[in-house]
């Protein structure tokens, strides 16, 4: 079929996609940051700085990949930070210092985090509770459990598993490679599996999706389960880094970083448009900025102000593009086109 392929090609040349745009933005951020750091007489691309940058991407990356799936379905998950904290405890206590317990621990983490995701999905899909409220609620429930049950660090992670937190190949940490592999899998899932493909339909218009015979509840549930499991993987990474399970890690509000990365990556908060490729770029932009702020020793207040400004500016830009697109087509082209006064 040459005809359709050709026109698809011309279409993509005519207008750069959002994903292409976000990678251009990432390149620009890297370039500007490199120059800014160089002006200070330092090298952004020194090994230590590169390692710092990549290390920052993995944790947010895991969370943001899962978050992309739920946001594409026009849902949200505010509980991922708590799920990750709980997962780190499940991992560390199950491992209990024994390498032999590793498979069991990983399985337990995926089970627990998947169940939390399933609970979120069921509340959203079947009880029709607004996802913001639903996942805020489950998050608080987990928080309450963590606060009363674990006063401090618990469990012990064997050295072999800590390698997941620290070892690297060249300047790239293993955890980042795992995150990228997961991203590739998610990209395939969204593009080629039916369920993944249907997530765009569910987020685009749930009624149209249902009218087309899609079991929308299941799609939503699947997205939430996968999001929960991604948070579980993030919890494994937390455990590997700290060497123990840490309830306190939820105080870092990782879920907000993840949402910011997803939105920065061009996924519409209203669902139906976007993807994991953009999210990875969003994660990297945030990591580069953090790294640069670190290298330049910018004061933490200004740092948050800059991050906030970047996120708002990006979303405002997407909103503009969206407006242009809808404005291009009048409701009744008959009166506008073809007839002149």
């Amino acid at each position, binding site marked *: 079929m040459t005809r*359709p*392929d050709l026109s698809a090609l011309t279409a993509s040349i005519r207008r750069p996609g959002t994903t292409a745009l976000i990678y251009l933005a990432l390149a620009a951020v890297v370039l500007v940051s490199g120059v800014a750091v160089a002006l200070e007489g330092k090298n952004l691309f020194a090994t230590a700085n590169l390692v710092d940058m990549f290390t920052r991407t993995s944790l947010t990356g895991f969370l943001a990949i899962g978050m992309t799936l739920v946001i594409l379905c026009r849902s949200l998950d505010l509980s991922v930070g708590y799920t990750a904290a709980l997962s780190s405890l499940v991992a560390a206590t199950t491992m209990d210092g024994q390498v032999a317990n590793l498979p069991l621990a990983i399985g337990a983490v995926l089970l627990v985090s998947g169940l939390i995701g399933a609970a979120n999905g069921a509340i959203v899909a079947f009880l029709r509770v607004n996802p913001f409220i639903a996942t805020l609620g489950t998050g608080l429930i987990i928080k309450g459990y963590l606060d009363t049950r674990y006063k401090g660090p618990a469990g012990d992670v064997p050295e072999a598993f800590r390698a997941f937190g620290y070892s690297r190949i060249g300047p790239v940490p293993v955890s980042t490679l795992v995150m990228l592999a997961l991203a590739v899998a998610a990209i395939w899932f969204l593009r080629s599996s039916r369920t993944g493909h249907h997530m765009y339909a569910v987020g685009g218009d749930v009624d149209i999706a249902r009218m087309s015979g899609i079991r929308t509840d299941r799609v939503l549930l699947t997205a939430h389960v996968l999001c929960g499991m991604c948070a579980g993987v993030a919890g494994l990474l937390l455990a590997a880094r700290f060497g123990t399970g840490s309830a306190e890690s939820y105080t870092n509000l990782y879920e907000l970083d993840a949402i910011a990365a997803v939105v920065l990556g061009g996924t519409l908060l209203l669902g*139906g448009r976007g993807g994991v490729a953009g999210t990875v770029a969003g994660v990297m932009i945030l990591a580069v900025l953090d790294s640069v702020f670190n290298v330049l020793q910018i004061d933490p207040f200004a740092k948050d102000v800059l991050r906030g400004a970047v996120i708002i500016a990006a979303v405002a830009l997407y909103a503009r593009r969206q407006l242009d697109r809808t404005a291009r087509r009048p409701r009744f*082209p008959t*009166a506008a086109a073809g007839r002149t006064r």
Partner: protein
Amino acid sequence: MTAPPVLDMHGIDKAFLGVPVLTSVDLRIERGEVHALVGENGAGKSTLMKILAGVHTADAGAIELGGRAVSFTHPLQAQQAGVATVFQEFNLLPELTVAENIHLGREPRTWHGVDRRAMAARTAKLLDDLGVEGLAPTAKVGSLSVAHQQITEIAKALSQGADLICMDEPTAALADAEVELLYRLVRRLRDRGVAVLYVSHRLREIFDLCDRITVLKDGKHVTTVDTADITPDELVTAMVGRRIESVFPERLQGTETGEVRLRVEGGGNAWIDAIDLEVRAGEIVGLAGLQGSGRTEIAEAVFGIAPFTRGTLSVDGTPMRITGPRKAIRAGLALVTEDRKAEGLALRQSVRANARMILDANPRVRSRRRLGRIPGLLSSLDLVSRGEDQEVQFLSGGNQQKVVVAKWLAAEPGVIVLDEPTRGIDVGAKHKLYSVIRQLAAEGLAVLLIASELIEVIGLADRIVVLHDGRIAGELPAGATEQEVMAYATGRRGAEAEPS
């Protein structure tokens, strides 16, 4: 031996809130037939089609598809039974491609996932069979013209195995060249044995395209005829031909037509064009036209919601650029919108809060005196409520509308535009509003009245301006007949008479 008809609906009844919309309606469509369903606004065409699509369920009557009795409680059931409906609002996802939309929920797969190549190939073949050119299966639907979106919707229906495709005003949003494309497509469908139910107001299309015509009037089946056996004039007579009941109040004594209060010259925007309009003090001008002819668009343009981008507008002789409702209100304009619940009222707020809303929101028109008039206004409108603290959501439709009218009259406008002021309200409230409208004119307001019910426009207006396709097709004096109005509204007569 004749095959059973594709569709046989008989004795269909439907009422909304006790008001009958369809009474014992029959509709029979043969295989491979293009069947027109016509009638005035409010005749029940849309309701009948929605019953067929499974959106509404009939109160009584039977539906047979290909001789098999069916009953739909959900749109999906209708779809699976082979009835597809192409509404004016398309059921397509703008972010997906043509092929993805057509195959949504039924994507072909290979061992490694969704088979986009097969999807595109099938779509290309489908479009090829339909004789469609220049529509790429991999194009995003959101970037397509309305015509191509419509084709996508029709192709989707076909690929789901539809035997009957219902089209609701399919040409309403199409340019002339695109209409030709649709004609070809419909004929191609007919040749493939697919039946088409074609709902339209446009007589020319009906006579060009359809084999038979079913006429509805006031929710009842009037006749079903072969297109060859009826003339356009006879068809219009069948659609209207109703006596005007003398329910409309007489023009009040002492009402004088004064200076021009609202004047539009050459007004136009993306939806309407070449609008010349004058409304004088004490005058009620009716805007008539079919759905989508641009009536509401004129109201929105005058009020600055979707302003005129061409031409001039003046209020009381002063040229104005009204770029938004706030400016319109300051200029002394008022607009009672079509959709009371979405645009007219804050449903969870009290009668008082709603009635004060325009004054409270606009310091320039707000005054102690005007605020003080509100209780009197409400009682002069015969508002029935449990006091000014009652939330308006608990009022009847008629009383809600009285609150809307009161909130606008509180600002003492010079020009009031009423868009479907009597929609969904009971007879008593309707009559009250009719006399209120007369009263307003007597007080020297300029009234622009939009109504789908032709008898309302004819019964109330001093002059009737008829729209067709976003333009003024003609103007008629008070006392015009429904036939005359319909002749302009359907495009059979008018400045822009279509070439034949």
